[in-house]
């Protein structure tokens, strides 16, 4: 028992030390340069496996072939929420630890999250048409994910509007943390409102209510999406760091007056 806690502290301490180590953007850039190819490769192979498993899966007796859409829809929705949570953690990183990369991480994640939320909405709509007979239903899950979509847009608009980096970092963190409240709402909306959308079927990991023929491809695809997200996130963080450098250099060289943004 004691040893166990010791071990835990060790892990947290090591994680903390690593995060401090990464506080230097150049060091992070090097780390990202090294990891991105591996992440890309891993994601690609997971996609290959997931797609193969998915396309060879039999038809669902209720939903027919449309169950195929699930393999892109569910992972997109998962990423939409995970990305926002990554942003919220980054927000805490900015407000509490003032980690220089936390703000970079938050800004870099926002467009990716927006893209996947969009995907979740569109594929959901394509799935909903044959299942419910309508492109869009104002049920709880759809509506709350749509709200998430709007929040992403708001955050991106805000990040473009505020120019001064420290103010912007603080504003974005505060808004992201306040907006995070939507995540539990999305999660429990199906339970609370009891609407059309089917309840989560993978959540009970011990005894999934889903057949293994659908579960394995779904999990593989979810993993592939997750790895892809981190790959894209690192790539976009690299962009954000470069943008910051460019901004500093331009201000120094006098090409950029106050009032114009890079």
């Amino acid at each position, binding site marked *: 028992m004691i040893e166990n806690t010791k071990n835990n502290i060790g892990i947290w301490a090591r994680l903390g030390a690593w995060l401090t180590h990464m506080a230097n953007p150049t060091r992070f850039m090097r780390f990202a340069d090294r990891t991105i190819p591996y992440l890309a490769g891993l994601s690609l192979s997971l996609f290959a496996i997931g797609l193969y498993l998915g396309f060879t899966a039999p038809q669902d007796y209720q939903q027919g072939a449309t169950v195929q859409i699930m393999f892109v829809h569910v992972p997109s929705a998962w990423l939409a929420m995970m990305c926002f949570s990554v942003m919220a953690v980054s927000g805490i990183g900015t407000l509490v630890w003032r980690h220089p990369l936390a703000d970079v991480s938050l800004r870099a994640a926002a467009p990716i999250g927006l893209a996947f939320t969009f995907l979740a909405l569109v594929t959901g709509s394509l799935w909903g048409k044959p299942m419910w007979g309508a492109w869009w239903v104002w049920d709880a899950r759809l509506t709350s994910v749509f709200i998430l979509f709007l929040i992403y847009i708001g955050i991106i608009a805000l990040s473009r509007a505020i120019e001064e980096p420290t103010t912007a970092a603080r504003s974005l963190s505060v808004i992201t943390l306040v907006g995070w409240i939507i995540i539990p709402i999305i999660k429990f909306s199906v339970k609370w409102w009891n609407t059309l959308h089917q309840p989560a079927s993978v959540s009970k990991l011990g005894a999934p209510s889903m057949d293994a023929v659908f579960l394995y491809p779904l999990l593989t695809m979810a993993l592939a999406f997750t790895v892809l997200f981190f790959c894209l996130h690192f790539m*976009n963080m690299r962009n954000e760091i470069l943008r910051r450098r460019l901004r500093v250099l331009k201000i120094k060289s006098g090409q950029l007056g106050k009032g114009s943004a890079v």
Partner: protein
Amino acid sequence: MFGDHAAYIVPSYLISLLVMLGLIGWIRITYSSHKKALKALEAKGIKRASSK
């Protein structure tokens, strides 16, 4: 292959592919344009503090 629902399944995979490719493309283009801009500034003699 997908039965009567191909009209819904194919577009959903297509649009996923498009969005992801678009995202990757956008990130890569931004990356190279930032790199280029940094190089151009360096060529003009404006250097980062560390590379003094």
